[in-house]
């Protein structure tokens, strides 16, 4: 008998926004509000008042709603109402799903489509623009993996390659700054790990509201402590980042995290679940009810009471487990025990199962009850949607399974074989993903339909009406300090401004020394990491962005961010070779925001073409807005460069010299 009381019995206050929550994402009103809403003593409905789909005890497993919704049940009850709108799916999207399946989706399937077709996973509003990165990119023979993979991989010598990527964890970091930021670091680290690389450094471009706003006093220390705790505990040096204050980020702080990894070229991994008969292994932390806020609406009997049952989308990170996961995966790679691998991120098992299968064109058979759970009462759709951290999905040849489980055990990481790769039905076309739960089929879908056939929108775009006014207010018209005294005043004001002041309070909380390869870090313009101790081969990375420039002119603002990062890398003596980006914007449903986005992408793609370096990967974060007010469009750009010998790096400060042999100072450029 399935114990359901934990799903239903404990009413949860409504959740605040989350990037992987169904979109259009509801945006929290204000800091205090969002938190207050979650804590509000008034909101929870008393347990008895929540209908539990009849007496839970007598309900047959395939009872619906509230019970287990199987494929046969879905076929038999085509007219049942489903909460697709609450899950963020549009009418036409829901119709598409029914066409694909030739029936209504089961609860589990509906959860999966709603997640995979969300903005966060499907890039449905950004796809048409992001294509330019590929189309305009200069040819690069260094790029071993690019956009579409977990992270771009760049070859830097005969034997070695590096991989890097920047990602956002903005909304969770507002709701729960410490854990939100911490799990942001955890997520990007697993992307890097999935490519076959050992993570070796992190960076953290951050944006907060006004420095003196009371809510900044809640968000900033929490975010910094979260990034510090997670990164420090993994043993990853933090080699740079940004701290920017602007009132536009008050209700929407930006927490972006970049990770750098290193791999021998032949250790490059991919996510394809190739080879029917191979075993699907879930490695890492047990699966719990983390971040399933959105889909918990499925547990409700009537959909309008769904909000009362939503669970918080907050995940708690366990950096210790992640550290063990890293070591276990690297040992598995080196022993050549892995056919394919994918990290579990925002969309949990749903994303990992469908993406690995779709990448290989194979099918998959999964026994969901084999997933190790933190709470036994979890329902299939919850298991499929769970965003529990510190997990990876492996595809393993059956004869290697024992060796894989042994290595997992050596590192104390739970591992279980949960499924099997299957072939195409009649040897033609892609296979199907078949998921059962205690003998009942709850999912039967073509995996590609979730991954590749999601909706794509060319959203309306319009230049914001106020842009002309903004641009007319030119810097040239501002009063200038005319006297020495006024100049002194201006200088003092600038030095005291939060955006220019010393960032040591933040950067001291990060370990910069661990691993012993940090050649340059804060307060340098770029971080430099030694990759090969013998040859001195290394890389330099800088991340930069300027929302105010981009607000005034998105095309040039994006180009400027790229140029700044490029310069910061170049001045260390490194040759810039690759770009990653995190595009933080407001709602794509706002034509003004969509225009900003399109212009920024065009600018970044053009800039990359002009500089001759490709975008290798990145991330889009939409819905960064409070009510109708969007943040400044904030593309954050990371540039990676190569140094043949890090001993030749050029640090930022003037060199100390002895005697009269002083350095000369030049100003280059106009």
């Amino acid at each position: 008998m399935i114990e359901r009381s934990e799903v239903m019995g404990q009413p949860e206050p409504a959740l605040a926004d989350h990037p992987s929550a169904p979109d259009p994402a509801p945006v929290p009103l204000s800091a205090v509000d969002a938190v207050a809403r979650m804590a509000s003593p008034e909101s929870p409905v008393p347990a008895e008042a929540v209908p539990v789909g009849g007496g839970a005890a007598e309900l047959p497993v395939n009872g619906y709603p509230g019970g287990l919704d199987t494929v046969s049940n879905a076929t038999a009850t085509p007219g049942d109402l489903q909460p697709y709108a609450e899950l963020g799916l549009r009418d036409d999207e829901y119709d598409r799903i029914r066409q694909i399946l030739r029936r209504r989706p089961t609860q589990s399937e509906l959860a999966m489509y709603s997640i995979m077709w969300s903005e966060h996973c499907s890039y449905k509003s950004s796809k048409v623009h992001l294509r330019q990165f590929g189309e305009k990119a200069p040819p690069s023979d260094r790029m071993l993996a690019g956009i579409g993979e977990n992270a771009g991989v760049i070859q830097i010598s005969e034997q070695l390659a590096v991989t890097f990527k920047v990602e956002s964890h903005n909304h969770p970091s507002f709701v729960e700054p410490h854990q939100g930021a911490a799990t942001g670091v955890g997520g990007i680290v697993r992307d890097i790990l999935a490519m076959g690389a050992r993570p070796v450094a992190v960076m953290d471009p951050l944006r907060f509201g006004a420095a003196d706003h009371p809510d900044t006093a809640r968000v900033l220390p929490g975010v910094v402590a979260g990034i510090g705790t997670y990164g420090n505990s993994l043993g990853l040096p933090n080699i740079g980042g940004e701290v920017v204050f602007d009132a536009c980020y008050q209700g929407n702080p930006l927490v972006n995290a970049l990770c750098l990894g290193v791999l021998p070229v032949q250790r490059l991994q991919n996510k394809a679940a190739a080879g029917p008969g191979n075993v699907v292994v879930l490695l890492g932390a047990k699966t719990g009810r983390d971040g399933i806020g959105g889909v918990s609406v499925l547990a409700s009997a009537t959909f309008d009471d769904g909000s009362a049952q939503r669970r918080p989308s907050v995940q708690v990170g366990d950096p210790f487990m992640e550290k063990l996961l890293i070591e276990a995966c690297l040992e598995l790679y080196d022993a050549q025990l892995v056919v394919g691998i994918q990290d579990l991120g925002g969309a949990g098992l749903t994303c990992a199962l469908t993406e690995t299968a779709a990448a290989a064109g194979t099918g998959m058979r999964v026994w969901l009850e084999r997933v190790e759970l933190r709470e036994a009462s979890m329902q299939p759709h919850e298991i499929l949607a769970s965003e529990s951290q510190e997990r990876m999905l492996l595809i393993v040849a059956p004869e290697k399974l024992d060796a894989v489980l042994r290595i997992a055990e050596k590192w104390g990481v739970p591992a279980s074989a949960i499924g099997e790769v299957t072939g195409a039905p009649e040897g033609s076309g892609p296979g199907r993903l078949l998921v059962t739960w205690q003998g009942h089929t709850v999912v039967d879908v073509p995996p590609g339909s979730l991954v590749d056939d999601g909706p794509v929108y060319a959203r309306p775009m319009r230049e914001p009406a106020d842009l002309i006014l903004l641009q007319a207010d030119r810097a040239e018209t501002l009063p200038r300090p005319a006297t020495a005294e006024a100049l002194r005043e201006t200088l003092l004001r600038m030095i005291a401004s939060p955006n220019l002041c010393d960032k040591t309070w933040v950067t001291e909380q990060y370990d910069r020394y661990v691993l012993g390869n940090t050649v340059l870090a804060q307060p340098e313009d770029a971080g430099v990491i030694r990759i090969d101790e013998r040859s001195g081969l290394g890389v330099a990375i800088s991340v930069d962005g300027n929302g105010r420039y981009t607000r005034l002119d998105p095309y040039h603002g994006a180009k400027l961010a790229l140029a700044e990062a490029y310069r910061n890398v170049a001045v260390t003596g490194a040759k810039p070779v690759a770009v990653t980006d995190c595009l933080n914007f407001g709602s794509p449903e706002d034509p003004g925001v969509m225009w900003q986005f399109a212009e920024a992408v065009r600018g970044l793609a053009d800039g990359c073409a002009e500089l001759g370096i490709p975008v290798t990967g990145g991330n889009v974060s939409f819905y960064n807005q409070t009510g109708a007010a969007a943040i400044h469009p904030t593309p954050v750009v990371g540039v990676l460069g190569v140094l043949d010998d890090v001993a030749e790096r050029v640090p930022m400060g003037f060199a100390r010299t002895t005697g009269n042999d002083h350095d000369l100072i030049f100003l280059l450029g106009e």
Partner: protein
Amino acid sequence: MTARIGVVTFPGSLDDRDAARAARIAGAEVVSLWHDDPDLHGVDAVVLPGGFSYGDYLRCGAIARFAPVMGTIAAGARAGLPVLGICNGFQILCEAHLLPGALTRNQHLHFRNRDQVLRIESAGTAWTNAYQPGQEILIPVKNGEGCYVADERTLDELEATGRVVARYLGGNPNGSLRDIAGISNEAGNVVGLMPHPEHAVEALTGPSLDGLGFFTSILKHLAGVPA
């Protein structure tokens, strides 16, 4: 014969490779020791490296203390085996009662990473004999729970018997009582140190080369002791 220095890896150890690198630069042969293996593989000295063993959950070092390898190390240490605990290693040594006192949350409640000046107070231990007494060195400190505490009597006794090995100068980074950065046991073979000498052994990656002395000290010490 080159000295063999064992570096223990616990789940969650982070600075183990750095400790190994430093020992190697000093001229030692490095042997990796594993938390789950009680065998010390005939090493002449042991380094317990920095990191977050077992996530540093509960209390730093509290769980690591019960690792099988610690049983052997504790017995060895009592019989004179040189042991250096750095940061998390220091915490483990205190939890294992091989050193007195405890390391608690930094008084300012933050993790702090900075380059720190130390004064070597005792050059009489197995791990500090390459320094001059009173010598000032610059090495990184980085911890969240590095505030050394012990009762007054213990502190007085440590001072009186020359067992305060190093002290913070120019600002105490964590609130440690009497600015204590490192201590030793009575025999001087077991040393615990909060800052990280292994991160100051190469000009390219550290603030100085001042950390190397801890590793050359142990080689000197072992060379002087007939095997």
